[in-house]
């Protein structure tokens, strides 16, 4: 078995597991006992792939970016997850999990969301399947991502503000877990990333693995090459990176680059670069690397991007980091903004702020001219327009073009 797949106890190396109160044990156990059988069933695969094709719009293009390639002197391809229905890779996972929830007979769906992308993707599949949907979102995120709040409400979801702690993704997750504890029987918790207790990290990685499955044949079709040299993806919890890396984890000649949000800078105290600032610990039911103080209190992270503003990282990524299979880089708020403006101008694509972090490391890497790089463009920038308008104003005031 691959050393990058979860073991029979739910661990990736020393990371993962299920560190949950007894109150959640039956729910998690039910999922653990059933998820593989459901995912591997013919009926599930048929419906999942049908919906991904006809509803989500897959396969998403693998686009050779000529101008970006010229600028950085390498062959750069963009995996266009931004073209998915609802604007990001998140829907690959929600389509899969809603089918699992239906199979388990659950009627009430809860989810957490940071930027709102996962919330929208969950509200969307709940509308599609006619299931009750409650989305927990940090009060701070509700303010900075108001269009997504309206989208969720229009889709019929109830958006509940998480008002504890830093009022961001971490706290939205705490509130969702609490809700699940209080409604154990009829509720399905649809987690949006490769985080949480086993089997969530593995289940979500499998549902996002369609990304690298497509990259494999698309790259072959376009270049004749089996593998790219490098894959770059941003990491908050790490679901888009898990999907983009999934089918390459054992191909050690493929460099896997995970890009974390440095916020204002790694050493400023305002950062979300977990691998650089974190220590081994437990968050949201999983043993992983997280940003914490000497007493194990979880530190509130910071990033301009709500989707990367998370103090932990999925256990698979902690394992990729510890084993050095993954290369962990980071980008600051400003570097991400600059990368977003650069891609928009060079290729006519406005990326999400999260994905802009992945683009931002191109200038920090030592690239070869025949190097084939795939960047997972996990989402589109519509939701970040307000931030981009502010940046545009600054640029205009400075007299940039």
């Amino acid at each position: 078995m691959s050393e990058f797949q979860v073991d029979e106890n739910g661990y990736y190396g020393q990371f993962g597991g299920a560190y949950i109160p007894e109150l959640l044990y039956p729910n998690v156990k039910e999922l653990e006992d059933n998820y593989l059988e459901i995912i591997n069933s013919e009926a599930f695969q048929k419906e999942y792939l049908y919906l991904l094709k006809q509803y989500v719009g897959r396969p998403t293009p693998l686009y050779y970016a000529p101008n970006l390639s010229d600028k950085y002197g390498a062959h750069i391809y963009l995996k266009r997850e931004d073209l998915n229905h609802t604007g990001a890779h998140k829907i690959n996972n929600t389509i899969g999990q809603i089918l699992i929830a239906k199979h388990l007979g659950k009627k009430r769906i809860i989810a957490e969301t940071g930027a709102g992308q996962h919330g929208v993707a969950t509200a969307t599949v709940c509308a599609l399947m006619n299931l009750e949907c409650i989305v927990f979102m940090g009060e701070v995120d509700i303010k900075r991502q108001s269009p997504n709040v309206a989208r969720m409400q229009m889709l019929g979801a109830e958006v509940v503000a998480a008002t504890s702690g830093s009022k961001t993704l971490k706290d939205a997750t705490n509130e969702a877990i609490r809700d699940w504890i209080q409604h154990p029987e009829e509720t399905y918790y649809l987690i949006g990333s490769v985080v949480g207790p086993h089997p969530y990290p593995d289940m979500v990685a499998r549902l996002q693995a369609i990304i690298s499955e497509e990259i494999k044949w698309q790259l072959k079709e376009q270049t004749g090459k089996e593998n790219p040299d490098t894959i770059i993806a941003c990491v908050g919890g790490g679901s888009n990176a898990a999907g983009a890396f999934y089918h390459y984890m054992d191909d050690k000649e493929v460099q896997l680059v995970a890009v974390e949000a440095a916020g204002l800078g790694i050493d400023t105290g305002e950062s979300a670069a977990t691998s650089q600032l974190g220590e081994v610990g437990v968050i949201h039911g999983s043993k992983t690397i997280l940003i914490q103080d000497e007493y194990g209190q979880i530190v509130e992270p910071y990033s301009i991007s709500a989707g990367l503003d998370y103090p932990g990282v999925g256990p698979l990524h902690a394992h990729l980091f510890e084993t050095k299979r993954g290369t962990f880089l980071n980008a600051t708020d400003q570097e991400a903004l600059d990368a977003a403006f650069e891609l928009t101008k060079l290729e006519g694509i406005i990326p999400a702020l999260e994905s802009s972090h992945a683009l931002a490391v191109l200038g920090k890497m030592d690239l070869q001219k025949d190097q084939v790089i795939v960047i997972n463009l996990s989402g589109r920038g519509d939701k970040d327009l307000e931030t981009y308008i502010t940046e545009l104003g600054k640029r205009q005031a400075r007299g940039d073009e």
Partner: protein
Amino acid sequence: MSKLTQLFKEKPNRLCSVYFTSGYPQLNDTVSVIKGLEAAGIDFLEVGLPYSDPMADGPTIQESSAIALKNGINLDVIFKQLEEIKNQVNIPLIAMGYFNQMVRYGSEKFCEKCQSVGIETLVLPDMPMIEYEKTYKAMFAKYGLSNVFLITPQTSEERIRKIDEMTDAFIYVVASSSITGAKGSISEKQIAYFNRIKSYNLKSTLIAGFGISSKDTFDTVCEHVNGAIIGSAFVKYVGANGVNTINGFVKEIIG
């Protein structure tokens, strides 16, 4: 024999325990709360170790924890506070916190400190059984610590029996599918659940928690299990009234 085992031998029913948040409402209230509760006749105490992300707790305990952390509480301060009154406290002390706190502090060092300040039992609601069996059972034993597991209305009989076998303190019977701090009375459904557990004839003492907030709920629960833990209701009380009238709060419940 541990103080707790001794207590259970002497008093098999109507055991009353209180959970309090260390360092709340004021940093140094830990000491007055412990002394006050012992004087008021509480049988044993749950010393809450405030955590930033208390998954199994409701808003009352989370908010009190956030305030305590802001007050400057941490494990070293708590151990120091307990050390100071070690010789003045006779009732058993249990520490309740989260797994990450112990691991980050250094599990062995944590256990050693607990033992030295007189804590003899731990409740870490998010510690998986597999970790306990693999690593912590032996470590806790080395420092004379016993571990408490929780069971809920959804816990299977097989698992309850396994927990009963592994338990040398008591089983923490979560009275409802709920986070701490739930309100209301004890329902027929909960009583049926208590009776189902009783019918298993377990060897362990059964203490109920989560949602015990008044004389009424305490009395009802004690008809079915050996005792109960009052948590959020007490935290709310000291938050509003301070630490000087604890006696009144306790008498109201245990008479």
